[in-house]
């Protein structure tokens, strides 16, 4: 899923300075799971902004709403009847949600309340780690299910650099060296030969931005 963190109150405050009416829009999917932009976090941010306004002598209206997903048109429809009266929509979704909201409500100011971090997994309570770099050409079959494009800081494809130390990364001693992990895993599953294959330079063309994907079934439908 997409993992995000909330921007500081100061940053958010600076974005909405002088505004009288702001709608905080939560997203009920990824950012709700990572405790950043779901219903509860919307409630908290709205309360903080109201309180800050009151304390600083410029009371304002801060309303709240949370949709199932901001990256899906069918859930944005329900916002139509609400948005016109606001100076800005403050989105707590990932960057995709913010942009989709801005695109959907073309006349409206849409602002980001979170920083989108990565595609990750829940490592434990309250801890998420990056697991995928969305390189568009998955090579996990070669590397024991551990991604060198993501876990190796230098995205090296042919083994560890000289900076690894006791199985840790030179860049951050708290992080594991991807290639030590890969080595141990391949050894465990009896597939060390895979580490002897010289991996060719990565093809970065599938990563050309902005990405676009049309499902096969829909491509066929369009042609007909």
């Amino acid at each position, binding site marked *: 899923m997409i993992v995000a963190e909330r921007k500081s109150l100061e940053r958010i405050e600076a974005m909405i300075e002088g505004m009288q009416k702001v709608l905080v829009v939560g997203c009920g999917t990824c950012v709700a799971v990572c405790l950043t932009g779901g219903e509860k976090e919307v409630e908290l941010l709205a309360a903080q902004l109201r309180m800050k306004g009151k304390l600083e002598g410029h009371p304002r209206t801060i309303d709240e709403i949370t949709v199932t997903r901001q990256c899906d048109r069918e859930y944005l429809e329900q916002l139509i009847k609400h948005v016109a009266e606001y100076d800005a929509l403050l989105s707590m979704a990932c960057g995709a949600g913010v942009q989709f909201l801005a695109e959907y409500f073309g006349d409206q100011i849409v602002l980001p309340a979170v920083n989108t971090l990565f595609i990750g997994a829940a490592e434990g309570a309250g801890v998420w780690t990056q697991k995928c770099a969305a390189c568009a050409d998955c090579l996990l079959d070669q590397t024991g299910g551990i991604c060198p494009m993501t876990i190796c800081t*230098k995205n090296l494809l042919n*083994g560890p*650099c000289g*900076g690894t*130390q006791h199985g840790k990364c030179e860049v951050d001693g708290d992080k594991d060296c991807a*290639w030590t992990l890969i*080595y141990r895993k391949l050894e465990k599953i009896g597939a060390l030969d895979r580490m002897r294959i010289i*991996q060719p330079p990565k093809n970065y063309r599938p990563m050309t931005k902005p990405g676009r994907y049309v499902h096969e079934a829909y491509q066929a439908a369009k042609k007909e």
Partner: protein
Amino acid sequence: MAGGLQQAFAEKDFVVTAEIGPPKGTDVAEMLRRIDLLKDKVDGLNATDNQAAVMRVSSLAVCRLIRERGGEPILQMTCRDRNRLALQSDLLSAWILGVRNVLTLTGDYVTFGDHPDAKPVYDLDSVQLLQTIDALNHGKDLAGNELKGATGFFAGAAVTPEADPLEPQLLKFEKKVRAGAKFFQTQAVYDLDKFKHFMDQARKYEVKILAGVVLLVSAGMARYMNKNVPGITVPETLIQELADAAKDQALDRGIAIAGRTIRRLREEKLCDGVHVMAIGKEDRVPDILRAAE
């Protein structure tokens, strides 16, 4: 050197290279003095490539200066700062400027250097960079296009004999050999018995190995390296030897240790030579070589 590094390996039992750190800025006077001091005492001079991710004059420009002054340059090339177009372009440029040797490196990460907010590249890794050099040597670029004039580089790579764990390092070492590395410079070695163990593995391949010798200037530096530099282990006995020296004698003791290490490597024929790194003390490299005699 007239014959070049490749010929030195062919003709000599023990090859010696040293390092030139390009300046940060355009004042090259000090560096030129060091080049002149070292060029006839060693078989090759590495020009470092934004070493430790600190922005400096390029390795390529310094290689050309080394050559103009009659030295044998070794172009260090990291994968950190350039994509495959820039790397190949610089390789062709190096060749037409008379550079014949390339040392391929991954490159320290940008956050270690003086532009920690920079975008790191790593479009190729060191194995792929070696393959690229091999392609250019065969008159083709990485995309398979014909070149009008090929290169003929003598390519090298780095290896860490005391890496932990060692096995993944050895697997990559073997890939580098297959990808075209003809010589290796190792991370600094101090424990020669451990190094011997590594050489037993390395000797299975037809490549030349230069042991890395880093000059120790104090016990504090040795402890710092043990703690902070991956793959370097200075044995406690050496640290004690440095600590026992009077304060103004520590550097001389370090020079004696480096000389002793080189002598043993040569006399016991443990490897094909040494790459001497005397960071900030390049002026003392001749003293180290004298101590090794």
